[in-house]
């Protein structure tokens, strides 16, 4: 097989940074679902907290995407 792949190795770094964000978002929503399943009336209280946690953990993956484009 001949041929070459062109591109930036930055994108591999972005993929690696997305692992952490993915695990974090999974943990946040696992805890949220757990909480709502145990006490359904707490959903209104837990929902903003869950989305705030989503926002904070997702920041890592977003910064990774931005750095993948910005650094060259």
């Amino acid at each position, binding site marked *: 097989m001949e041929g070459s792949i062109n591109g930036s190795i930055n994108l591999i770094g972005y993929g690696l940074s997305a692992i952490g964000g993915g695990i974090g978002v999974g943990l946040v929503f696992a805890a949220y679902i757990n909480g709502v399943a145990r006490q359904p009336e707490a959903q209104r209280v837990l929902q903003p907290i869950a989305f705030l946690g989503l926002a904070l953990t997702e920041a890592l993956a*977003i910064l990774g995407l931005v750095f993948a484009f910005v650094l060259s």
Partner: protein
Amino acid sequence: MHLPAILPWGAAEGFSKQMLLVLLSVVFIAVFFVLAARKGQLVPGKLQFAGEAAYGFVRNGIAKDIIGGKDFIKYVPLLFSLFFFILVNNIYGAIPFFQLPTFSHVGGAYVLAGIVYFTWLIIGLKKNGIRYFKLATVPSGVPWYILPIVIPIEIISNFIVRPVTHSLRLFATMLAGHLIVMIAGYGIEFLVSQENILLQGTSVLVLAGAIAMYMLEALIMVLQAYVFTLLTAIYIEGALHADSH
């Protein structure tokens, strides 16, 4: 990315498809809500019901639940406009012929997040005076010897990372979703143009995957509008009640 201008003459330089879509979105939202609110009946018709449900979602589901108290109603117009502006502009990405989420250009997302940033800064300063910066950066109940580490982290996370991620979250999800649909389209075209019939057949699999990604993207578009508005409400609440956090 920057798209070419759609109007040929010089005065409209830089007037690209995204700007046209932004203007159109304002028209769509205004027409919908003016029509929905025109005949206020006690027993709402279909259109009025849709308009009231949309308004009630933002008012009760976001503003009242998060900001709470008596003065949440002051911030409903901002949250309401933000939610529907972002929603319509995102949904463009899933509608044929429009097919471009406006916030796949980062400029629009920067402007919205900038508006929100200065809004909650001014709210915090009005409510708490200059003491707001101390309240926002010095967490209570932390031993004094950890403070030199905690305060820089709080400053960076509250005043720098917060607006940056607020705008980039919207931009990055729109860009990534748009890219993946486009890449799937190119993949289908590439496979169909192969000479081997078996390779051509695999394009059906890519098409199925592309449709699935398209649906996921439509979900994410609505979710991002919600998340952006929700975070706006959370930031405003944090600025309003800085002394109780």
